[in-house]
């Protein structure tokens, strides 16, 4: 009985195996190439490590947003709340308790997750415009609390006095940002692969299902609300990591960590790169930040114009973002023939 039941699945696995393992290999090569790029950048741009580190941190944040917006389909304009929670969590921990980076990283992640869970309890009941407004409000409330508690947090002057210990007691954070860069890269690689596993899991499939049709998910017995709270909490954990790395590497946290600009930019980066693919978070963030950096250094006053135009073009011609380009191109080439 048991045997006859399992057979069809086995047959299928066998016929699909070569194609699947080839696909797996290609994906692995792409991932390795990406890591290679990350390592190569370390040697090619030794004078720009600070900027590239900011890109890496931003990628972690945008990845965490992809989980919520790209996979589960929950639109939020307050992701900075979770980033800021992680940044202040890790920053305050370093100033008042322990300057150990890995411990601080864990604290930042947990604070991000806790804030996400608590705010998620009411955010995940809301939809559409109400949800957007509420997510913005959460970030602003947190910002205001940190601002008011200036005796502890430094308020609008920012949290000063972070002085991180060396990682594992060996690798000190140096003035050129070499250690900081490799630290951020390592964290990013771990987060990326963890998320890859997560989105391919049953839990990830459920998130996509909620995105596609929440009524259908309820009708198959899924407690949609609690799943969303769970997804949001995991996202908060990762956004908290991004905030913590930022606090540790720059040894500074300011109120801008909760800023609306950060939330909005993260969303634009994700839309640019493409939602619900993880790789979109990487490519969108890199393109946005490099264009921003270059445009701002050429014309410090009108760079926003360049970014705006780029976003318009992408949203208009490739609504799926840069990750949608290959498919678009293939279709276009076929049409040309």
């Amino acid at each position, binding site marked *: 009985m048991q045997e006859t039941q399992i057979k*069809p699945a086995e047959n299928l696995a066998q016929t699909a195996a070569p194609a699947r393992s080839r696909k797996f290999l290609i994906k692995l090569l792409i991932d390795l190439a990406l890591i290679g790029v990350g390592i190569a950048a370390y040697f090619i741009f030794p004078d720009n490590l600070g900027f590239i580190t900011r890109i890496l941190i931003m990628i972690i944040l945008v990845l965490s947003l992809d989980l919520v917006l790209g996979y589960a389909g929950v639109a939020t304009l307050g992701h900075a709340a979770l980033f800021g929670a992680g940044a202040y969590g890790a920053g305050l921990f370093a100033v008042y308790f322990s300057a150990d980076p890995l411990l601080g990283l864990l604290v930042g992640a947990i604070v991000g997750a806790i804030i996400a869970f608590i705010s998620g309890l009411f955010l995940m009941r809301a939809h559409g415009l109400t949800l957007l407004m509420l997510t913005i409000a959460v970030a602003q409330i947190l910002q205001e609390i940190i601002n008011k508690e200036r005796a502890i947090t430094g308020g609008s002057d920012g949290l000063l006095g972070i002085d991180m210990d060396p990682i594992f007691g060996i690798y000190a954070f140096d003035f050129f940002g070499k250690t900081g860069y490799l630290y951020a890269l390592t964290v990013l690689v771990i987060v990326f692969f963890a998320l890859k596993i997560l989105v391919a899991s049953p839990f990830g499939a459920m998130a996509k299902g909620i995105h*596609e049709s929440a009524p259908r998910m309820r009708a198959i017995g899924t407690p949609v609300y609690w799943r969303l709270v769970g997804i949001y909490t995991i996202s908060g954990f990762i956004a908290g990591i991004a905030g913590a790395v930022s606090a540790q590497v720059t040894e500074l946290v300011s109120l801008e960590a909760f800023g609306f600009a950060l939330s909005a930019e993260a969303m634009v980066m994700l839309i640019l790169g493409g939602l619900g693919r993880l790789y979109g978070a990487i490519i969108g963030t890199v393109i946005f930040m490099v264009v921003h950096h270059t445009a701002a250094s050429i014309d410090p006053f009108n760079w926003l114009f360049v970014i705006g135009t780029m976003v318009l073009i992408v949203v208009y011609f490739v609504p799926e973002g840069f990750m949608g380009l290959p498919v678009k191109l293939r279709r276009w080439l076929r049409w040309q023939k």
Partner: protein
Amino acid sequence: MSVGMNVGMEVKNLQMHFGGIVVADDINLTLKPGDRKALIGPNGAGKTTFANLLTGNLTPTGGSIHLDGQNIAHLRESQRVKAGVAKTFQITTLFKKMSVRENIRLPILERTGLGTKMFKKAEAYPEVEAEVEQMMTQFNLRAHADIEVHELAYGQQRLVELALTLALKPRILILDEPSAGVAASDSHMITDAIERLPKDLSVLIIEHDMKLVFKVANKIIVLVNGAILCEGTPAEIGKNQQVRDLYLGARHDT
């Protein structure tokens, strides 16, 4: 034991109003294992609302719903599904950008409690995959296994929805107009699939297609303005002049 007495679903004095509009007016209904009951009535009679009250999508303003003797009226939709109540929607509600296989996989993962697993791939559970294959075979969907559902003909989407719902292993199955929107040439697929449902399942079918109703139902309930007008065997309902005037006649005119 008295357990046998209570097996199935028993709806008593179910009430529902939206503001001042009464859409369920003191409805009583029982569904025993193996029942094939049809709920018919004009548009706006309250059929879909009644289905939603049973599944927990809506909360009744009065009355009780018992399943095997337990009141489930206070349970959330997801909890009622786990208790064994499932339904298909009047307008197919599927994961449109997922393949047929992925559509059927989700309810099985959920039912077996694997829905929150995070470390293995969704398709890495052999017993789940075996069941997905079995459902696809049962509903003649294997040829379309890897096609995204929105690319299928509507009739086939209906089959996917049936397969997906049956994958929940419900004891009470509610079908809200399963043949609505299906091309006439495809409607036999739906009829066949309904006729092949497990014998001990309780089925409540809401349907406008009288051919389908008379083929599968052994009891017909006529709902008008949220209240049961009459119920009986297909033969009795077919002869009932009141029903013919109110509903069947009107349909024949159009």
